[in-house]
């Protein structure tokens, strides 16, 4: 199944080569979780900051469904 991923700010470094920037379509297996997507993107668990699925805060164990949008937010220090 396909989902859409958005990586914000410093997490953009984990956009896969050739994805063309954020957001990008990403194919995952049925039963995929936020954590399994992070692993495939090469994003360390320590970077699992705030995550939303379909615009609502989720956690790394949240199950994903076809067509959902997954978005990762790092904390931003700047002011």
């Amino acid at each position, binding site marked *: 199944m396909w989902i859409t991923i958005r990586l*914000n700010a410093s997490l953009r470094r984990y956009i896969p080569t050739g994805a063309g920037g954020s957001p990008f379509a990403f194919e995952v297996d049925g039963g995929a979780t936020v954590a399994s997507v992070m692993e495939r993107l090469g994003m360390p668990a*320590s970077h699992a900051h*705030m995550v939303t699925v379909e615009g609502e805060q989720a956690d790394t164990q949240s199950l994903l469904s076809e067509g959902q949008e997954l978005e990762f937010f790092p904390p931003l220090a*700047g*002011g």
Partner: protein
Amino acid sequence: MAKTIKQLMEEARKDVPEWSAEQVEKALANGSGPKLIDVREKEEFRDGHLPGAISVPRGFLDMRVEEVVPDKSTPLILYCAGGNRSLLAGRTLREMGYSDVISMAGGYGAWKGAGREWVRDFEFTPEQLKRYDRHFLLPEVGEEGQAKLLQAKVLLIGAGGLGSPAAYYLAAAGVGTLGIVDNDVVDMSNLQRQILHTNDRVGMSKVESARATINGLNPDIDVIGYETRLSSENILDIIKGYDVVVDGCDNFPTRYLVNDACVMSGIPNVHGSIFQFEGQASVFYPGRGPCYRCLFPEPPPPGAAPSCQEAGVLGVLPGLVGCVQALEAMKIILDVGKPLIGRMVYFDTLSMELRIHKLRKDPDCPVCGERPTVTELIDYEEFCGLRGAAGAEAHA
């Protein structure tokens, strides 16, 4: 055929029942009672009025009443000084379709004359009446709201990229006391975005520069400066007494310190933060929604999240986010609208996308959760390994 005032009044009495002040008092004593509208001129209203009355002068009644009372079946009691203007105003409202309109016979004179409760609102100076005129026109602000703003105290953490627009607009809007925490001095590299400061103030303390700009715009504002580094030792004393904290600092140690101190003190924290072309804002309101640690429980490891000083920031971006912070602070003070509690607005300025995400309170949050593990303030500067430590510098 032309009518006399006496004829007009007699006709109005057929459409608009008149109640005595005593009857009005009884009706108002019922909590879900009618809406009370004072149709006298603003100057008369300012001298004193019935508690809970809304001021809609008769001259503006037909134009303004639908904003104030959209539901035309709402029971209304109108009053003026002696009962004549309210009777005629009542007839106008009946013609506009309001079905339940009462005029108070004898008006404010009869009410006050019998020793009933009345109130006098905040007394504005003639200059303030001009300065805040556009706020007075908004039913959600009005004179009552402006008085709240003038009596409100907002503490800005940092007078940098975010603190500059936030403080400048809060000052323009008439937020009476602005505390500013910043121990930095103005640097030339700040001027690309920190609009409180000017070329000729390079080297001056940011607090003093901010004070000069704010008081140049609005001398009403009492600027209280804190040229100090925030720490676990001083933050509770500094934030005590403020209605709202606006966090525009530039480092994680301060963000966590401010969050924890606000949770412990029960003070709403209007958060804003930026990175290159992106920014976010939310309201962390203790007891009413998540806090910063519900999103980011612990500070990131050193180097994981670069600062603006290291990564750069687009000049206009803090203007966007800082203005959202100022708006949210005003909404909290005025108690209007829907503050960003449990929601986070995220700006991506390159794609010009703005998204609002729903946040949740974490029952396991280390500071506001059911079993908090952070029960004392923590100075994270060594842990984070960041330059500038726990100061509230906003020079990023």
